């Protein structure tokens, strides 16, 4: 399982993601700077969290148009697995790899806390070691995680089982439509999520609830 973690100016969660991937897959990921035009030969690309370009214009908007993203888009169209976490979710959504948009949290506050996530679809490459309907703890840390899309897209996402992660009812931290915390594309090879599973995989994190997500990568 070879992976690459993309790095843009202003990203600050890449170290945690690299550590999580190395610990769980046994292989140190490539860290790829945004000005590169070609990805190394990998099975998975992860776009980590942070504040790329200081969230200028819109969260993820500028990073989504950087040189490396053209190759990510081209290879994702051919089946390359892509995960975007937090700012990474915003970046891949701005890049058009996932439908909809992430806007300002409904209550206007940056939220940094632990939420309860339900695994709504355990047939993806990032959830296959989880039971469907399982509930896990996972931290969130974002100001713009309020997922929105048009009603047709929402119907599609729900109908096709493409809502992968949902905040447990009553714990939605940002006002996201239908409590959506994470989705995948139609082909199932691109997943975006606001919570940070890389920060809930070892004893020092307090809980290891999200370890099976990373273990799923090896089974996929």
């Amino acid at each position, binding site marked *: 399982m070879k992976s690459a973690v993309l790095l843009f100016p202003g990203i600050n969660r890449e170290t945690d993601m690299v550590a999580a991937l190395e610990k769980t897959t046994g292989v140190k990921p490539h860290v790829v700077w945004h000005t590169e035009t070609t990805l190394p030969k990998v099975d998975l690309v992860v776009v980590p969290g942070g504040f790329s370009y200081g969230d200028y214009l819109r969260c993820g908007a500028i990073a989504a148009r950087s040189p490396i993203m053209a190759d990510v888009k081209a290879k994702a169209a051919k089946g390359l697995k892509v995960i975007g976490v937090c700012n990474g979710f915003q970046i891949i959504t701005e890049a058009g790899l996932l*439908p909809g948009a992430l806007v*300002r949290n409904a*209550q206007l506050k940056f939220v940094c806390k632990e939420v309860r996530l339900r695994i709504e679809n355990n047939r993806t490459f990032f959830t296959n070691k989880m039971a469907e309907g399982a509930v896990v703890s996972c931290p969130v840390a974002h100001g713009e995680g309020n997922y929105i899309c048009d009603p047709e897209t929402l119907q599609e996402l729900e109908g096709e089982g493409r809502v992968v992660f949902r905040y447990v009812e009553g714990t939605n931290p940002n006002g996201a439509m239908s409590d959506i915390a994470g989705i995948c594309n139609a082909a199932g090879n691109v997943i975006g999520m606001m919570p940070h599973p890389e920060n809930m995989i070892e004893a020092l994190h307090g809980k290891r609830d999200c370890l099976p997500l990373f273990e799923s990568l090896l089974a996929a």
Partner: protein
Amino acid sequence: MKAKIKVTLKNGVLDPQGKAIEGALGSLGFNGVNSVRQGKFFEVELAETDKAKAQAQLKQMCEKLIANTVIENYDIELA
């Protein structure tokens, strides 16, 4: 050539910032504010001197970067 671009949230897209401004105006004593929607304003200077070409360029800029057409509308005004 100078252009002014307005980017606004589409109807139906929740605007929590506009709502907060609306609330603050109310608490300042401005009664009767029915709604506030916040948007963005850009001034762009172009080397292009042909109006039609400039318009086409600006439209592309809006579609590709300046606006997220999933949630936003844009309006281009050429000086």
